[in-house]
């Protein structure tokens, strides 16, 4: 496995621009060579009860990167799975500690105290989170709350990378800030040694998904980006235009902040199969030419024979 390209963009939604709210999303993309990557997007809730949620979302992205930088090199799928399932408890524990520390430095002013953060002091920092950690053999995905993490696979299928959560609909979401939130994470691991791997991975806060009425419309991002990457100057096209595309989507639909990470992975097996297939085609073409030549030789002999007979 090799990471071919990655990009992250975050923009403030028009509804937040109108109301003067800052972008509540945070985004993180860290690579170490072409075989290691950490990506995360987090969406601060932004409501009046969650007035520090841009800080909460930043804490989430930073802490996730700090946690997975110490990840071991996995020798099996089970090992990777076990590790990924241990992240949520540690992650939530550290995130809540970071919020506690922030509250020591910057306690709630009297006008910031409300019924919600009196009952649960983390609520003002509330956010959703989507993250992935990719090494040379495995990809680990974690999500809490809404937002969309999906991929275009080698076989052409586009699908979600973690299971759905029935509790997420309308504006209702699970959150880092809620009690027992470590239990609300959805986690998955993909063996990148398989033939069918996620080639275009997309992590996006819910401002993107809310701009589409159906999953099939959203999933076109996966297949379209795959085509763009394969086209001449594809990477440049994406780097030049991604922010404009997201702005256009937000402005004409959800109005929400949108943060997106795109990761393009090289599927060595698929590329080897393509290469083998091309080589086979070349051999077949040569054979075909040989056979065609043989038949035209026969034909010329036959014609000659006919001519002789005549």
């Amino acid at each position, binding site marked *: 496995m090799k990471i071919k390209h990655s990009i992250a963009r975050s923009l403030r939604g*028009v*509804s937040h621009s109108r109301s003067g709210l800052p972008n509540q999303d945070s985004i993180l993309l860290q690579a170490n060579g072409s075989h290691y990557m950490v990506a995360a997007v987090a969406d601060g*809730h*932004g*409501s009046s*009860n*969650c007035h520090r949620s841009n800080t909460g979302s930043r804490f989430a992205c930073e802490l996730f990167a700090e946690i997975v930088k110490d990840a071991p090199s996995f020798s099996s799928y089970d090992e990777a799975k076990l590790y990924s399932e241990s992240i949520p408890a540690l992650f939530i524990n550290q995130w809540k500690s970071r919020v506690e520390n922030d509250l020591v430095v910057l306690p709630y002013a009297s006008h910031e105290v409300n019924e919600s953060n009196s009952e649960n002091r983390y*609520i003002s920092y*509330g956010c959703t989170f989507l993250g992935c950690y990719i090494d040379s053999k495995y990809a680990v995905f974690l999500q809490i709350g809404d937002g969309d993490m999906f991929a275009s696979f080698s076989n052409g299928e586009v699908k979600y990378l973690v299971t759905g959560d029935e509790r997420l*609909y*309308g*504006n*209702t*979401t*699970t*959150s880092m*800030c*809620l009690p027992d939130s470590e239990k609300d994470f959805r986690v998955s691991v993909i063996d990148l040694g398989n033939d069918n791997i996620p080639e275009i991975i997309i992590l996006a806060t819910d401002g993107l*998904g*809310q*701009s*589409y*009425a*159906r*999953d*099939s*419309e*959203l*999933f*076109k*991002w996966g297949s*379209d*980006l795959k085509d*763009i990457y394969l086209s001449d100057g594809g990477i440049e*096209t994406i780097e*030049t*235009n991604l922010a*404009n*595309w997201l702005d*256009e*989507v937000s402005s*004409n*639909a*959800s*109005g*929400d902040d949108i943060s997106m990470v795109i990761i393009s992975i090289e599927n060595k097996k698929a590329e080897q199969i393509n290469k083998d297939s091309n080589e086979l085609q070349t051999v077949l073409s040569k054979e075909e030419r040989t056979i065609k030549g043989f038949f035209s030789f026969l034909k010329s002999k036959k014609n000659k024979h006919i001519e002789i007979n005549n």
Partner: protein
Amino acid sequence: MKKEIRPGGTISKRISPVYLACDTSESMLENGKIAELNNCMREGCAMIRKLEEENPTIEIQINVLSFNTKACWVVQNKPVQDFVWPDLEAKSGGLTNVGDAFEYLEMAMKSPDMPERGYPPLICLITDGYATDSYKPSLDAFLSTNWGHKSIRQAIGIGKDADMSVLTKFINNSEIKPIQVNSPEQLAQAIRFVSTVVLKKASVPNVGTTPTEQTPVVEVDPSDDVW
């Protein structure tokens, strides 16, 4: 950048579906109930239009279901900006087969037209009588659908004869009580509440749980009671 190369499918505003299931049985002819319902609904729809104008990222779609002996759709999936309240007529001899209305709502919740990524539907049931059919199986089927279960339900009982137990079962949420109204003013107040507070709560960011709205306090002066 050329618009056509933007990745992704067709973008759209987030759909917020509103279902208004209105009783048009014979009893709604009494004491001008159907006329008052039409008046109040006209005012309510103007408020819904205003709510959408204030929230340009949502598209509110209106559905009106009329039910008496049989239920029928009067309006389906109509953007509120293009919607004019259709004056409903009560039917002489019409029964209150609310179970038939639940069957129609069940079908609507299962329809492929329901946006996968929209807001949960707001469904308001308005009736003045007792159910004249065995509605429970239909109600259970409606509530067992994905969107029926997730919908935000409110109910208005018109007059003292309204069977509030049916409405309570329809809402199926101990935190929300049906609203009983006994005069045109109270009906207007209840519809205003549904058209603004309840709908707004269904379409604003929320963390943790589905928003629930307490029943509005209706000022009651028994001398004003008409129904």
